């Protein structure tokens, strides 16, 4: 037992007070008048020497009250003897058990538990032991202690999950954790050591601060496993990408259900990856559930089911204003928007000079293939449309040249610089952080012959510049809306942008950005997080694949990041409506091939050479002491009550005797 504030024990000196008071009392005893002391003689037997039990008990209670009060302030504590960690030498042993999906193979996880128990038993006496479960996160199972029994019990409660283990991320977390542990730190990693779990760089699996890595591999033999890699909607129905790892003559049946309706069963055979097509799916409006099941024997059953969501929404109409509705710009733009596989857009071309602005109320955004084609009469209408929250995707062509300002946006133009002789400009600078450009690739191939220069504006940073510094794509907020302007035409005499794949991606990304459609991702990997944003006073509720609500009532009123722990289909209820989200085991968990022994050896050797000198025993974690002061205070209260009661008894006795 120890004391957190031992100086308070000095208060125990106060026990001199009750002792002194009792001596006074006993010395004075009963005082009575007597006629004469002439014949009296002082007795040699003093009162305070007589052992009268009742006064001794009262004195003992009073002394105990003072002692307990001082002890309570001194904050006594005890430590569990079994959890004391040796100050030096033994160090810390981390028992890390892989609980990723691949460990669910038959017999593998029980083997891993046995190896973990053995590693606990092999840890030297006095060493701190920490059991850890590792998959997409690292979870400490028990407090760090030398209590092997407690750590063994933690191993017994473990089960494999449905998430992936990345060794690089694991070693990074172990490196951070090891900084607070008593050196030397030994990591016992019990895993099937999938090659798919290794990071791109080997250095990422060599943690600093770890003296030794023991790679305890479990599972043996050549794994045989079928797994689903991808499910996507096709023009005819559903395409399923499967992978076979193992013997080439093994087959498996692949069953696809859409909204619980079986649409087909195919037999897959052969080694490697290949696509199975399942036509005939009837899509309902909204979110459609797609479930793929592999029927057959393989080493890992956890990856034999795959879930997907196919969203079936009609194309969203968008007006396209053009001076020539039959011209190439309209064709290019219509083709690009028509390439969307999900919830695309339906382009409605209009002649700019014949466009009835009253129909703008039906749309959220519009496209103009040459912003200079907007007439003076139409300009205020479109300006009002954008100001009130609408969006505009505009390109700049022949009709823009010669203007002093761009219609709607009001940007001042400079005289055009027409390059001749075949000279062209490349893209010099672009903003990769912008949502329109972040997912597009290949801008470096684009050549620009002509562009519409604008006056520099210190308050506006273009999304893209040519290599001569002139802006090519700018975004301009206008009221509640925005304008996205390309300062070149969709014309092969101006540039070759439409012939590059990046054009389609740019147009689709711009369409999604300007139309207000957010990233409605609906297929996740287990371990990913699903954001729930607050709308008004509620964020929403999520029902997991087992039908249980994920959030408490209080949590539904706060923005949340829902961790998708289970594989299956989640129902997400938000103020905007109900959507479905699918979560699947990471396909890389289906790749059961183990890391080569040479790599494992190299991994362990690299860790051995990474030992940092042990300076002292500092940093050793000791169990949190169990404070006893609440119990001492309780005992103090009991003694105070007893002292008061016994004191009242004595007072009553004296009253009666007097």
């Amino acid at each position, binding site marked *: 037992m120890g004391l957190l504030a031992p100086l308070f024990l000095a208060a125990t000196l106060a026990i001199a007070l009750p002792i002194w008071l009792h001596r006074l009392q006993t010395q004075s005893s009963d*005082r009575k008048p007597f006629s004469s002391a002439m014949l009296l003689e002082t007795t040699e037997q003093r009162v305070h020497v007589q052992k009268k039990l009742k006064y001794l008990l009262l004195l003992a209670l009073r002394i105990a009250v003072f002692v307990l009060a001082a002890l309570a302030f001194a904050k006594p504590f005890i430590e569990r003897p079994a959890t004391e960690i040796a100050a030096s030498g033994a160090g810390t042993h981390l028992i890390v058990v892989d609980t990723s999906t691949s460990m669910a193979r038959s017999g593998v996880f029980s083997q891993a538990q046995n190896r973990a128990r053995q590693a606990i038993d092999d840890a030297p006496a006095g060493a701190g032991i920490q059991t850890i479960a590792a998959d997409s996160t690292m979870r400490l199972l028990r407090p760090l202690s030398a209590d092997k029994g407690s750590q063994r019990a933690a191993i017994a409660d473990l089960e494999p999950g449905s998430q992936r283990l990345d060794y690089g991320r694991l070693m990074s977390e172990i490196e951070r954790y090891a900084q607070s542990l008593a050196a030397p730190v030994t990591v016992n990693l019990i895993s099937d050591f999938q090659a798919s779990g290794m990071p791109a760089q080997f250095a990422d699996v060599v943690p600093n601060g770890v003296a030794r890595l023991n790679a305890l591999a479990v599972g043996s033999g050549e794994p045989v496993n079928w797994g689903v890699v991808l499910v996507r909607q096709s023009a005819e129905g559903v395409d399923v990408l499967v992978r076979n790892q193992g013997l080439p003559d093994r087959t498996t049946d692949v069953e696809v259900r859409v909204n619980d309706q079986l649409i087909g069963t195919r037999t897959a055979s052969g080694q490697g990856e290949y696509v199975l097509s399942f036509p005939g799916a009837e899509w309902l409006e909204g979110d459609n559930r797609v479930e793929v099941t592999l029927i057959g024997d393989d080493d890992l059953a956890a990856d034999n089911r795959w879930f997907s969501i196919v969203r079936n929404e009609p194309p969203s109409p968008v007006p396209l204003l053009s001076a020539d509705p039959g011209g190439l710009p309209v064709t290019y733009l219509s083709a690009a928007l028509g390439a969307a596989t999900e919830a695309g857009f339906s382009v409605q071309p209009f002649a700019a000079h014949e466009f009835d602005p009253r129909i703008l109320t039906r749309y959220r955004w519009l496209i103009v293939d040459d912003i200079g084609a907007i007439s003076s009469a139409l300009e205020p209408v479109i300006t009002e449309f954008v100001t009130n929250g609408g969006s505009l995707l505009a390109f700049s062509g022949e009709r823009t040249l010669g203007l002093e300002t761009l219609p709607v946006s009001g940007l001042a133009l400079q005289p055009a610089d027409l390059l001749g002789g075949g000279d062209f400009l490349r893209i010099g600078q672009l903003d990769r952080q912008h949502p329109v450009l972040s997912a597009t690739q290949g801008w470096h191939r684009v050549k620009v012959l002509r562009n519409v220069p604008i006056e520099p504006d210190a308050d506006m940073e273009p999304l893209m510049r040519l290599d001569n510094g002139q802006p090519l794509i700018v975004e301009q907020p206008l009221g509640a809306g925005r304008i996205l302007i390309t300062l070149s035409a969709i014309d092969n005499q101006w540039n070759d942008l439409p012939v590059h794949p990046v054009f389609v991606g740019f147009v689709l990304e711009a369409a999604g950005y300007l139309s207000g459609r957010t990233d409605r991702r609906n297929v996740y990997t287990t371990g990913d997080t699903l954001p729930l944003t607050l709308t008004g006073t509620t964020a929403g509720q999520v029902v997991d694949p087992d039908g249980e609500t994920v959030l408490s009532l209080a949590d539904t009123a706060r923005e949340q990041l829902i961790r998708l722990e289970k594989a299956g289909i989640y129902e997400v209820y938000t103020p905007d409506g109900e959507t479905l989200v699918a979560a699947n085991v990471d396909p890389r968990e289906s790749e059961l091939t183990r890391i080569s022994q040479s790599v494992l050896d190299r991994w362990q050797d690299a860790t051995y050479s990474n030992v940092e000198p042990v300076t002292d025993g500092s940093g050793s974690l000791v169990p949190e002491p169990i404070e006893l002061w609440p119990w001492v205070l309780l005992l103090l209260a009991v003694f105070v009550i007893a002292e008061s009661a016994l004191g009242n008894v004595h007072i009553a006795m004296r009253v009666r005797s007097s």
Partner: protein
Amino acid sequence: MAALKTAQSSARQLLQPEVLAGLKNLELVARSVVEGFIIGLHRSPHFGFSQEFAEYRMYEEGDDPRFIDWNVYARTGRTYIKRFLGDTNSHLMILLDSSASMGFGGPPVSKLQYAKFLAASLAYLASRQHDAVGCIVFDEAIRDFRPPSSRAGKLHGVMHSIDGATPGTGTQFERPFEKFREQVPRRGLVAVISDFYCDADALLEGVRPLAWQGQDVVLFHLLDREEMDPSFDRNVLLEDVETGEAVEVAPDFMAEEYPRRIREHVQSIATAASGSGADHVLVATDDPLDQALRNYLLFRERRQ
């Protein structure tokens, strides 16, 4: 006879200190005691209660004028006092100790209260015998002094002095004895009522001159039963009411040693009294007063 016995038992009950304590008037107490005492006695010429005429004697200053034979005065022109059987023509001087130690005792009565009853009774008894009665009330000093006189009014004065006694300070016998020798040169009876917490030799030195003077001295040694036979069940701190000295005593000591000491002290006082020719009467405050009165009468009888 039965009526006499009833009267005797009632009278005896009147002599109980606790009964007397209920009487507020000291003269009434004294009268009750004496009358009750008399009822319990046979008529005896030797005790001076007879009213039979015995002889005449010349009137002396201080004699009660009620006993002047006026017929003789008318015939002879001289004043003569009638003497009855039992008259000794003496005086009784009561020395009453009113020191602080006399305030100890009780219930029902303290030593001083009992002493006052006794002194008043003696005074009344003596006055019935036509003796002159006086008193000195003292502690460390003389608190009150009444010269002996047989006049009716004088007895009232003596009663008043006795009644006014309250526990005072310490005890000092030398001064009252000296006062007595100065003020009362005539031979007579001296009754000293005290608890005599003093040195026996010092007391002897004080009493002896009185005896040489021809006084007949009786010492009424008054003690409370708690002083003679104390009972304590635990150690106790006893504080001397005169000196303030506090002594812690054990129950064993008070039960065994102290009674022996007090007996020895009483014996030493008795011895000192005897050595100086005085009588010594030990009186407990719970004793009926008739015994003390009886002892007085016996003393008086012997001195005649």
